[in-house]
């Protein structure tokens, strides 16, 4: 079925089990899709505009942001166009070009790009490397010392990827925050793969800033949307209003997500608040699938046992099959699709990642069976 002459209908959530880690946490709920449909037109949230998106009472965006702050254990929150925009807003607000900023080796590329755009000096905390790729608080301490030695000052900001998008490692954010406090370094936690899926409490962790991705982990579709939450001491510096247009925060250029994506985030929020309570079940589901794949010779790489729905795998057996299969390295994608499973990047056989988030037990049994079946038939 075609939507227009050159646009195909997207049916991968309805007809397949989609395990693409980029997409599982952003899958919408029926009420979210209805909200998106109702607010689909341009500037739809601005019917009752009172001067600023974050102050809107109808739809109740201001109240929603207050609720988000409570949910995340922070003091103030702001809508952004995504997690990367939230990170850049902090960088732009509190650093100057040339300042030292510490990031982790498992960071998303947008952390690096945001730093580049802010013209800061980037210092990277290396991971432990194969097979765990761990990021440790000691790593942050070592790099802080390196920065002090080189520049004579502590870094202006430390950014940690709470859960990385390659291995799904969950870093002890509180321990990193504790190191930051010892060095008086402001701490920004990138929760693109954590908040909205699992409980995140900024106060307990000791984060100064939390960046969130609505379309990645808060079941918000209909466009791009993110959140930036900060603690009280940083409000004036990060949420600074325009001198000329007093209602407009400059770091989001006045108003950020101004349409259905913001509404989607709000519509999904009740379900998101509920689903984080069931995080242990998601981890258990993930571990079950990992166990079944490992029995078939497909190894999980990263911290073990896995603590997240996103996992990275290495497989010699699947790679060897590609050497003789008529579809070469595209066979895995093709065979899985034939079994109703999509989301592994086409062409990958030796290393790949996927996510089990939000799937039923039956669906995850089917995914594990599909992999085992391929190994049994061709391996």
């Amino acid at each position: 079925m075609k939507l227009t002459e050159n646009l195909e209908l997207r049916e991968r959530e309805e007809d397949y089990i989609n395990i693409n880690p980029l997409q599982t946490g952003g899958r919408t709920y029926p009420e979210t899709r209805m909200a998106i449909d109702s607010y689909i037109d341009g500037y739809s949230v601005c019917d009752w505009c009172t001067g600023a998106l974050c102050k809107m009472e109808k739809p109740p965006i201001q109240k929603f942001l207050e609720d988000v702050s409570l949910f995340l254990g922070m003091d103030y929150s702001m809508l952004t166009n995504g997690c990367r925009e939230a990170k850049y807003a902090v960088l732009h607000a509190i650093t100057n070009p040339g300042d030292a900023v510490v990031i982790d080796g498992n960071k998303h590329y947008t952390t690096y790009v945001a730093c580049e755009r802010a013209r800061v000096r980037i210092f990277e905390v290396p991971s432990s490397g194969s097979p765990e790729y761990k990021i440790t608080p000691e790593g942050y301490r070592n790099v802080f010392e390196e920065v002090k030695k080189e520049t004579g000052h502590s870094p202006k900001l430390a950014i940690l990827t709470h859960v990385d998008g390659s291995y799904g490692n969950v870093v002890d954010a509180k321990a990193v925050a504790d190191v930051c406090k010892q060095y008086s370094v402001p701490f920004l936690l990138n929760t693109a793969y954590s908040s909205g899926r699992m409980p995140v409490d900024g106060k307990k962790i000791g984060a100064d800033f939390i960046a969130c991705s609505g379309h990645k982990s808060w079941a918000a579709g209909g466009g791009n949307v993110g959140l930036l939450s900060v603690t009280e001491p940083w409000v004036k510096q990060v949420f600074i209003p325009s001198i000329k247009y007093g209602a407009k925060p400059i770091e989001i250029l006045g108003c950020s997500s101004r349409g259905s994506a913001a509404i989607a985030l709000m519509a999904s929020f009740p379900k998101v608040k509920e689903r984080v309570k069931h995080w242990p079940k998601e981890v258990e589901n993930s571990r079950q699938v990992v166990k079944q794949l490992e029995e078939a010779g497909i190894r999980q790489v990263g911290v073990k046992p896995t603590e997240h729905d996103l996992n990275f795998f290495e497989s010699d057996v699947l790679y060897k099959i590609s050497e003789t299969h008529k579809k070469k390295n595209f066979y895995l994608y093709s065979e899985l699709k034939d079994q109703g499973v999509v989301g592994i990047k086409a062409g990958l056989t030796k290393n790949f990642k996927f996510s089990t988030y939000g799937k039923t037990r039956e669906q995850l049994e089917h995914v594990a069976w599909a992999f085992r079946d391929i190994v049994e038939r061709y391996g």
Partner: protein
Amino acid sequence: MTDETNALFEAFFSLEEIRELLRQSAPSHKLSDEQKKILKEKIAAIKKSLAVLENLE
């Protein structure tokens, strides 16, 4: 809100609930007894909404 617009969105919402059934049961689309019950309810609701829309001239 007019009855017609209300009926239109009621039908959309029921269709979205059915879409969710497809998502939850992919790829086989074999529904459980509970899901079959929801499906029947939603189809009935859609028919009711369509009856309102059929009155539009």
